């Protein structure tokens, strides 16, 4: 019995082996985690307690403090790229804007009547037409459309033919059913604006249909 216990005890002791470097592993984890904040530490963008923890780690970790130094140096080197803007930016942009503004005032004298907030209520397509550049073009297109519509609108002779047609139909209908009230709403009154025209149509009707 005792021998068996001793044997088991030895077996259990056999499981024991040197501990892994737990301390080192924990420290590596902490280092890794704090290193990811070196950048934010440099920018002063950490919460105060976190800032203090990173600072304490920097005192004891060469890798992280070297990284911080490199980041600081590189920041200065990028800053060194800054140089004055060419004046031509200002002159070129202002020339273009003034040219645009001059065009807009010629074509759209009441520019101040535009409501800046209007844009908020109009979808993008609508706003596109309100842009200074396109507003002129939109105005011009509208003018062309109106002029075009007027030019191609049915002219007087065509109108007469249409009336002639209506007149014939209506007269026929009226002679067939002279007391039908609904027919009086047909725009024959509009068509027969003058007695002269009416007589002309009547003559034509009698010539063509009446006999």
């Amino acid at each position, binding site marked *: 019995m005792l021998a068996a216990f001793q044997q088991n005890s030895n077996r259990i002791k056999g499981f024991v082996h040197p501990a892994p470097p737990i301390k080192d592993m924990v420290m590596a984890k902490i280092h890794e985690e704090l290193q990811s904040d070196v950048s934010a530490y440099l920018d002063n963008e950490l919460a105060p307690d976190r800032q203090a923890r990173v600072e304490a780690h920097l005192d004891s970790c060469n890798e992280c403090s070297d*990284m911080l130094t490199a980041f600081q140096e590189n920041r200065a080197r990028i800053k060194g790229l800054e140089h004055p803007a060419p004046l031509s930016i200002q002159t070129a942009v202002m020339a273009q804007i003034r040219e645009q503004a001059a065009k807009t005032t010629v074509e759209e004298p009441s520019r101040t009547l535009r409501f800046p907030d209007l844009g908020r209520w109009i979808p993008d397509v609508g706003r596109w037409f309100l842009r*200074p550049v396109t507003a002129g073009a939109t105005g011009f297109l509208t003018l062309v459309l109106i002029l075009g519509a007027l030019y191609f609108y049915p002219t007087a002779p065509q109108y007469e033919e249409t009336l002639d047609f209506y007149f014939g139909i209506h007269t026929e209908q009226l002679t067939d059913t002279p007391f039908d009230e609904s027919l009086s709403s047909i725009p024959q009154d509009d068509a027969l604006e003058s007695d002269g025209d009416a007589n002309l149509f009547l003559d034509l009707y009698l010539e063509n249909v009446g006999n």
Partner: protein
Amino acid sequence: MSIGTLAATMETYSETIQTEELDLAQERELVQRCQKGDVDAMGTLIIRYQHWVYNIAYGILGHHQDAQDVAQDAFLSVWENIGKFEFRSRFSTWLYRIVKNKCFNQIDQHQRRKTDPMEIDDSQPWVPLDTATPEDAALRSEEKDIVHRALSKLKDDYREILVLRELRELPYEEISEILGCTLGRVKSRLHEARKALKKELERVEW
């Protein structure tokens, strides 16, 4: 002829650089005047912001002429779209967002302009040095050249965030608004960008 005088004969640069921040009330007033079509107010905004607009673009693009084109284009966009600005952010934040977008459009165009599709190497960002003009050369000392070279090797995201933070010195909050990402994302991206630049500079210098 020294590098300095060569640069000076080529282009006139603003002598007094107005870079101090406009306070919010001044900024708001100028923007509102622009929204009513006041050209002079726009002139004032350009004078106040051209330095940073140009330098941010130059930092991201690494090319003088492109930076100048982007800066002009950005200000024209501001003028055309100022009616859409609703004061939900600082004007400068909105402006830098426009600049950043224009820079990346420019980079895309350069990438697409490379005729042979087989030549495009996605692992390499646009390297501006092969298109550098004598003017670029004049503006760059050897030191600046090294930094530009290292920056040009970085991912676009990294170059952009380094320029906004190291050059323009913007706070994380404003950077997050410009980039449209969270504060946590700004923090981690900036850290990665700085590590990448450190590595690149070590490589360039050896």
